[in-house]
């Protein structure tokens, strides 16, 4: 089995029963869990409190032993020490040593990975930059705020440049900037080819970063799959343009009624997300150099992260090139991911122009439902298809893209 297809995590019929002092079963925290996480995935583990997320993670890390079932991480038992060289873990709270400072903490964990001193020092400084705590590196962790401790927690999870990162409630206790930064880091790590398991009940976080999710309830898996498939509202279409006049909207409504026999579900001005607005304000404060004892502007992703993955990708690309040269039509070809273009403004303008030419009486506006916020993650391919369909339907063959 190739490196690419070997799952990072594989569980089969995984169960965990907690027992009392007399060994009587009390709580079945995880029941018959079958899960697979493939390399490069950002996998979200969702569920309400007590659904078994943390228990599952602890079993994956060898901190708890399964009552029944099988579990393999990198094809080995989670208790295998060699597996842990490839894992980074951020627990639900920052369980760090209060008497060590940030630099000592990272150095200590680096030593446990037997990193040479030079490498440890380099990584420690880069990670402190990344989490924006270099200026507070000599303060003891016990004096840190919860958010600062979380950041050091994330830094320690990355000290070994892990292939597989397990993040348990990574944004808990963080301010919106920290939350955004953590999400950016997760996305960036995902881009670097790292496999990430993210456990959270902050659904927006998971939605923003994950490729695939699994929803647990009562220790059982209730839903699982690709997040796009699970969340797409295929029965709706969303088009975002610059501000339109009432007249234009009426034109569009007429056009829709005429061509598709459908009405507009909602019309409204999209709002900024509070997270984006907050971050914009704080970034301006950073630029104005306003004094703070907290976290300062965070740095870039450390250059050491993803070294292994980068080299792996590079070697695969080079191997592919060689294969292309040797056998351009044969062999196993990996389908590239479809490149999705955003709808061009010109297309929309043309669409509106054709609508004006072919104006019809609009349906009564009073019948339209009240404006509501549309889905944030509109399936862009579907938009394009609808636009194409509309253009064809309007008889505007000239306007086909």
């Amino acid at each position, binding site marked *: 089995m190739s490196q690419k297809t070997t799952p990072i995590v594989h569980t089969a019929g995984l169960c965990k029963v*907690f*027992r*009392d*002092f007399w060994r009587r079963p*009390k*709580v079945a925290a995880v029941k018959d869990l079958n899960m697979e996480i493939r390399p490069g995935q950002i996998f979200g583990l969702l569920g309400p409190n007590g659904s078994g997320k943390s228990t599952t993670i*602890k079993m994956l*890390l*060898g*901190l*708890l*032993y399964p009552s029944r079932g099988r579990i393999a991480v990198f094809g080995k038992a989670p208790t295998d*020490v*060699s597996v*842990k*060289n490839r*894992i980074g*873990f951020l*627990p639900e*709270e920052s*369980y*760090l*040593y209060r*008497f*060590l400072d940030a630099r*000592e903490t990272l150095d*200590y*964990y680096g*030593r*446990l*990975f*037997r990193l040479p*001193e030079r490498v440890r020092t380099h990584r420690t400084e880069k990670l402190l930059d990344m989490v924006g705590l270099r200026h507070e590196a000599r303060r003891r962790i016990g004096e840190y705020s919860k958010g600062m401790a979380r950041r050091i*927690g994330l830094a*320690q999870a990355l000290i*070994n440049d892990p292939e597989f990162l*397990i993040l348990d409630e990574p944004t808990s206790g963080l301010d919106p900037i920290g939350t955004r930064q953590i999400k950016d880091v997760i996305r960036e790590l995902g881009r670097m080819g790292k496999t990430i398991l993210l456990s959270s009940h902050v659904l927006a976080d998971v939605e923003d970063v994950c490729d695939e999710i699994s929803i647990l309830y009562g220790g059982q898996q209730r839903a699982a799959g690709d997040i796009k498939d699970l969340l797409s509202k295929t029965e709706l279409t969303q088009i975002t343009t610059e501000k339109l006049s009432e007249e234009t909207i009426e034109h569009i409504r007429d056009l829709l009624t005429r061509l598709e026999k459908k009405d507009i579900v909602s019309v409204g001005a999209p709002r900024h997300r509070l997270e984006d607005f907050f971050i914009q304000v704080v970034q301006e404060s950073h630029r104005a150099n306003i004094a703070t004892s907290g976290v300062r502007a965070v740095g870039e992703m450390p250059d050491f992260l993803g070294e292994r993955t980068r080299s792996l990708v590079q070697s695969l690309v080079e191997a592919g090139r060689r294969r292309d040269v040797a056998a351009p039509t044969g062999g196993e070809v990996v389908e590239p991911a479809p490149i999705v273009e955003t709808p061009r403004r010109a297309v929309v303008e043309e669409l509106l122009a054709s609508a004006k030419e072919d104006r019809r009486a609009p349906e009564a506006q009073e019948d339209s439902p009240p404006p509501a916020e549309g889905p944030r993650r509109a399936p862009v391919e579907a938009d394009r298809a609808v636009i194409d369909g509309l253009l064809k339907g309007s008889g505007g063959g000239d306007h086909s893209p």
Partner: protein
Amino acid sequence: MTVAVASRSSRTARRRWRLLRLLIGLPAAAERGVSRFYSWTPLGRTRVGAIAQQTVAEGVRMKIALVFLALIGVCVLGLPLTIQGDSTLTGAVQSYLSYALTTVGFLLAILTIFMSRTVSDELVGKQIMVLMTKPVARWQYILGKWVGICIFNAGFLTFTGFVVFGMVHYIAATHPPIEEIYGSTQMKGRADEPGAPASADRQRLQTEVLVARTATPFILPDFTEAAEAEYQQRLKEGFYDLTRDYDPQEERERLAGKAEAAWRVVQPLSRRLFQFEKVLCDRSADNEIQIRYKAEVFGYPPDEILRAEWVIGDPSKGAARYHAYTRHVIQRYQTIKVPANCVAEDQTLTVMFINRNPYANPEEYPIPEPLYPCTVQFIESAPVECLFVVGTFEGNLARLLALMMCKLTFLAALGLLATSVFSWPVACLVSLAFYALAGMQSFLTEAIDPMDTADATVFSRLADFGRAAMAGDGAAASEAFQGFFLEGVGESLGLLFYVIPNFARFNAVEVLVDGRNVSLVWVLQGIGQLVLVSTTLALGLAMLLFQRREVAEISL
């Protein structure tokens, strides 16, 4: 001019402030320096070494060290201010050594048990959940913690050793000898021989406490032949009633004991010869050997002082002969010092004790003393000892600390074993109980010995109880059950003592206080039994149990 002066004073203030900051930051800088140095050592480069360093840092920074340092400081620095001893300089130093080292040993044992809390703390604080996701095997974690606690203890012991050493010399320099307190006439009974130096007390301290002396093994004469002869004589005389139930072997042993007791008694104007073999000292006349004894007297002299004559050395074996007239307080260990050339060429020594008052001789003393006739009994197992110096006090102290360290290594392993199984309060209780058992093992073994009867076992007692109960004999059943209970307790404790090391066997404080040699062999025995056997067993068990433990376990 004024500006120049102001500028100078400001510079001085700045310099002082800088110096103050430097002094304040010195401990932290020293800690950083030591930790940096440690990280370069072969141990520091390993995972075990990293965990050990973190454990030490925890001990230092969580103020545990500070509290115990203060307590130890009180013990080793405050004690000299309160201890008076028997008013002699020697007594003051001996009392100080005894109290300080015993207290420090106890405090360090408590500290060690307390330090093992680190595992419980990490389990409760969940730091272990992060640690165990790093490539650290469970055994490495336990070993690292143990090494850390041992390094911590070693630091404390080294510090204590230096302070005790310094304090001993401070007391020796500042405490007045008894002659200065009461006048030399009061020392009449304490001087070893006529013409003793002005400060016999100070000399005694130097030669009997601040040294490492070894004792030549004294072999008691064999009394079995005499006992057998008497037994046969009694048989011949029909002393024993043959119908009486008695054990001939026991009777022989009783008679041997009786002969030995008679040998230990020296009647007035009688003498007793003591022979020593393998007196492996430097036989030069410049060197000194010591004859040490403790006498019980029947028919006390009014001043409770035993007067006697000692003849040391056998000229027929090429040794010098010395006569010593002694006036010693009874029921105390007393020492006679003689040149080492009294030891024969074949490394044997002959010592004769004559129970007579030499000071009653009018030919030697114009004002003779009364005879004070009394019977002397040597009650100690070694009635007379031959001691000679083989080492220094410093070396002795170092070896004593090494023995203490051996105990602490075991306690560290015991504490880790307890905390790897139980939560902290229970683990603490278990560790303290085992510590107490280890310390009192000799006493408890003797206490439970009568419970153990050779012809009965727990099972036989239980069978007796069953039979008596079946037969409906209540009294016999009750007796059998009592026997079963006592046998069970005895055997359980016996089994426990088989596992727990005997700390009393390695208690060297009194030996050091007595100026005896804490031998290297003893230290090696301590390392062998306490470290290699007991500690390895406890650590191995701790690793095994911790391996099985779920570190993220939740309590229901």
